């Protein structure tokens, strides 16, 4: 990895999760992934989703999880193709429904680390209802939302996170709909861990993803990405490298923001990276297991009466 890139910005975390040299060769998990890989991916050259996939691999590797105990569930879209390249239990479902499938899987197998992988349209438009209800229930699922602010696979239509005024193939005069703030929505709906980083800040993504997966509750990681092929082209934002650089320039770490004066904070227009909530609430599958014990005790007593 380019060292200058790493040093060029403020990381939310001082310590990087992964060894920075020869990490691929040193990781048994990654060796296993390599064996079954289905490369090349469907993603365009320069796409940010590959960075997120790398972060996910490193986070799982860091946690030392058994591949058999990890399930990746995805919906439909560019991001949702990620599980197909990875050597875990992988379920590629219908558009918007990753969290609903994941709900059934997690309840059936609470011992599995279930990670739902979605794009912004998948998670928040067609899947918006499942997103808020999974958060409300506090199921022990990690929701990884790659936010590239566009429907990429279908060719660049505006999504629930496309910025106001943004040009898309279905908003040729500029988008008139305000975007969803994904992290605020997740917090309001009841998620117990919510963090945001960008594909430029890969090591920060590693850390947030590892924390989110380890969290015993519904956790959300928003990975801000870009689509140079559609949104970038339509809005004249340059190459993939230009858009990557923009994520460096147009984001600010929460800790850095907090060091600013209240006036400066109020005037901030940059995307804030950081961990926004990390709280404890009873986790659904544990609550239901307790319910089963309680009900079985009562019905056993009734049988003995």
């Amino acid at each position: 990895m380019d060292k200058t890139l790493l040093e060029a910005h403020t990381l939310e975390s001082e310590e990087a999760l992964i060894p920075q040299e020869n990490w691929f060769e040193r990781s048994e998990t990654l060796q296993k992934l390599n064996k079954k890989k289905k490369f090349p991916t469907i993603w365009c050259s320069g796409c940010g989703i590959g960075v997120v996939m790398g972060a996910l691999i490193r986070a799982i590797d860091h946690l030392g999880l058994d591949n058999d105990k990890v399930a990746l569930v995805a919906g439909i879209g560019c991001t949702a193709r990620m599980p197909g390249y990875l050597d875990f239990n992988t379920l590629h479902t219908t558009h918007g429904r990753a969290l609903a499938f994941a709900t059934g899987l997690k309840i059936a197998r609470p011992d599995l680390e279930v990670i739902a992988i979605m794009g912004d349209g998948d998670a928040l438009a067609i899947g918006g209802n499942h997103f808020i209800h999974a958060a409300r229930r506090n199921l022990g699922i990690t929701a990884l939302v790659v936010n590239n602010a566009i429907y990429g696979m279908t060719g660049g239509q505006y999504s629930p996170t496309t910025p106001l005024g943004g040009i898309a193939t279905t908003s040729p005069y500029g988008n008139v709909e305000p975007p969803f703030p994904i992290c605020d929505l997740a917090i309001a709906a009841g998620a117990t861990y919510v963090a945001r980083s960008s594909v430029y800040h890969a090591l920060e993504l590693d850390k947030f993803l590892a924390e989110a997966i380890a969290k015993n509750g519904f956790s959300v990681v928003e990975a801000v990405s870009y689509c140079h092929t559609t949104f970038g082209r339509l809005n004249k934002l340059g190459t993939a490298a230009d858009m990557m650089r923009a994520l460096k320039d147009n984001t600010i770490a929460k800790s850095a923001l907090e060091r600013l004066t209240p006036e400066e904070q109020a005037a901030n227009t940059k995307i804030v990276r950081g961990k926004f909530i990390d709280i404890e609430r009873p986790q659904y599958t544990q609550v239901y297991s307790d319910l089963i014990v309680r009900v079985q005790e009562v019905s056993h007593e009734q049988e003995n009466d």
Partner: protein
Amino acid sequence: MTVKLMQGNDAIGWGAIAAGCRFYAGYPITPSTEVAEILSRELPKVGGKFIQMEDEIASMAAIIGARVGGLKSMTATSGPGFSLMQENIGYAAMTEIPCVVVNVQRLGPSTGQPTAASQGDVMQARWGSHGDHPMIALSPTSVRQSFDLTVKAFDLSEKYRTPVILLADEIVGHMREPVELPDFKTIKVFEHKVTETPATYKGFRNTPEGVPPLAAFGTGYRYHITGLFHNEDGFPTQNLSEIDPWLERVNTKLEKHIDDITMLEEDFQDGAKVAFLSYGASARTARHAMKIARAQGKKVDLLTLYTIWPFPEKQVEALGELVDWIIVPEMNLGQLAYEVERMVGRKKVRRVGLANGEMVTPQMVLDAMES
């Protein structure tokens, strides 16, 4: 076991428990809600799990997810909810994940009449999801049969790795009858046995019998499941040399075992020239009409279908050879009659259809016999 008074929907719930269903996800809808109520009460007692989802789309998704995790699973709904489930029913067919979908039919289209009876979802059960796919649908005519066919639905679903629709209706669902349920310990349902090692296992192998064994997630068999066309390993493919064998296997797997899947009852009389053919609550009308006709000295054949899909082509075609007329009473404007016509020709079929929420009466069947 003692005789108990219960309604069809209760019997469906007990059938699920007896068949080993240990996960239910659903959304409240009349006239199916009792199925959810009884399972929310009974599933935790046997270590099973119940969840009320945010809608029917999520319910269908959740039961597939739970079965991927290894639990036999079911949902129950009615017309509007059944419409919402169609995409994921197709996903279950495509990915060959067993699951049972109970549709206690009510009057449609749209919101229709939630408390009125109907058999208007016969064609939707077969063709509601886009694309060609196999489908099994069973239709009970009584409370006891609601129990038996629920058990059978789980058995067939597992055995053939396909979603099974239990096409009940408001009349049988809410009808109360005294029933004696069998000892649940005596009930056997097909169980998948994976004998291969994870190294050689292929979740979608093109086996001669058409149904490769299904491994649950988290048991050491890591593999990929997708609603895209996929190869034997489960990975997406656009290669016709992989797609064509898949199409051949999946779309003929039920045909290969049609005698195991087909359930019906023939009550024929030598020399009869008229037959009544029906299913679900309307089969009770047909049986009543048959009794009246025979009491009047008229010869009548009665064919009651319990398996609606795949349509029992062989048996209906044979009936067409025996009689001049087949009268098909049903609570729709002639949906199953289409299939009967396909087998015996339009001229031999008389439709007796009602789509106003009322039950077809025996007199309407007898009138059709005279006309």
